[in-house]
């Protein structure tokens, strides 16, 4: 049975065999017609591929598209950085505002607290001075609590059913 060197033919035509291997293939080719035909066919396949792909032209605007994509990406990155600066700027503005108007704000808050204390004091004084009014207040409070409990129970019943 003749041993064909078919699997070496591809590397042979690419010049990728050692000197010894190449000599073996060449001497085999001299006497083997089927391997000669196969080699011709493989060379033809290679040439067809080279020819077909050599004729493919890249799109003319590919380079412009790449540069445009790069510039778009850069712009997007800058815009994203800009958005990150917004909360930072807001925080900085608040800090500045606090230092600039902090004293005025503290005074207003202090005055408001004093006014509230005076109002609470006046209300309790008025209630203790008129006993009927305090009795009425207690009654009104009880009424509000009962109404609240009742409405809460109804609300819970409706949601569970």
């Amino acid at each position, binding site marked *: 049975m003749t041993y064909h060197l*078919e*699997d070496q*033919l*591809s*590397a042979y035509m*690419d010049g*990728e065999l050692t000197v010894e291997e190449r000599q073996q293939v060449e001497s085999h080719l001299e006497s083997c017609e089927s391997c000669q035909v196969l080699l011709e*066919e*493989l060379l033809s*396949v*290679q040439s*067809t*591929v*080279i020819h*077909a*792909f050599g*004729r*493919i*032209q*890249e*799109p003319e605007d*590919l*380079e412009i*598209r*790449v*540069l445009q*994509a*790069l510039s778009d*990406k850069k712009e997007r990155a800058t815009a994203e950085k800009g958005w990150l600066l917004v909360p930072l700027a807001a925080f900085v503005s608040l800090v500045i505002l606090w230092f600039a108007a902090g004293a005025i704000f503290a005074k207003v808050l202090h005055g408001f607290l004093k006014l509230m204390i005076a109002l609470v004091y006046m209300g309790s004084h008025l209630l203790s001075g008129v006993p009927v009014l305090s009795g009425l207040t207690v009654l009104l409070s009880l009424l509000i609590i009962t109404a609240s409990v009742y409405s809460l129970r109804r609300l819970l019943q409706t949601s569970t059913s």
Partner: protein
Amino acid sequence: MVDAELYHIIHGAKDGNQEAFAELVRRYKGHVYRYAVGMLNSRMDAEDVSQEAFVKAFYSLSGLDNEYAFSSWMMTIVSNLCKDRLKKRNKEQDFRDEPDECIADSSVSDPLAKLSVEESLARLSVDHREVILLHDVQGYQYEEIAKLLNVPIGTVKSRLFTARMSLRKELAKEDQE
């Protein structure tokens, strides 16, 4: 091989020089595009992937250790992107069911002949398509392909032989049809 001029261009682009990078795109766009067409069998996808490959290259160029390895580095980027695109196609189950869009190049006198080679190549496995494109279209030698694909030279040799045998069969089918 990288000549001195190209070395300076790659070095400039690596330093962030956009003009130098534009020159690199001009020089390599044909290689990248043809490889993508061969892998994807679709002009539209090949355009997208080529663009994506160059954008990716621009942002990762600073990580390129050796300027002389730019060409194979670029090819690795486009190869990975093509494989990702093919995986995505397989997931969408469009790869075999629907024929890809193949717009005939108006500059080619015989578009049918060209189409048949691309179509035949598309019927091979991804590994087989890849070695044929890297060797016959891109002109890499076995040793370079082995490094690029991270496989032994023996694998490149046997893969290329099997790929050519399969392509021969596919082209013969095309001739019969």
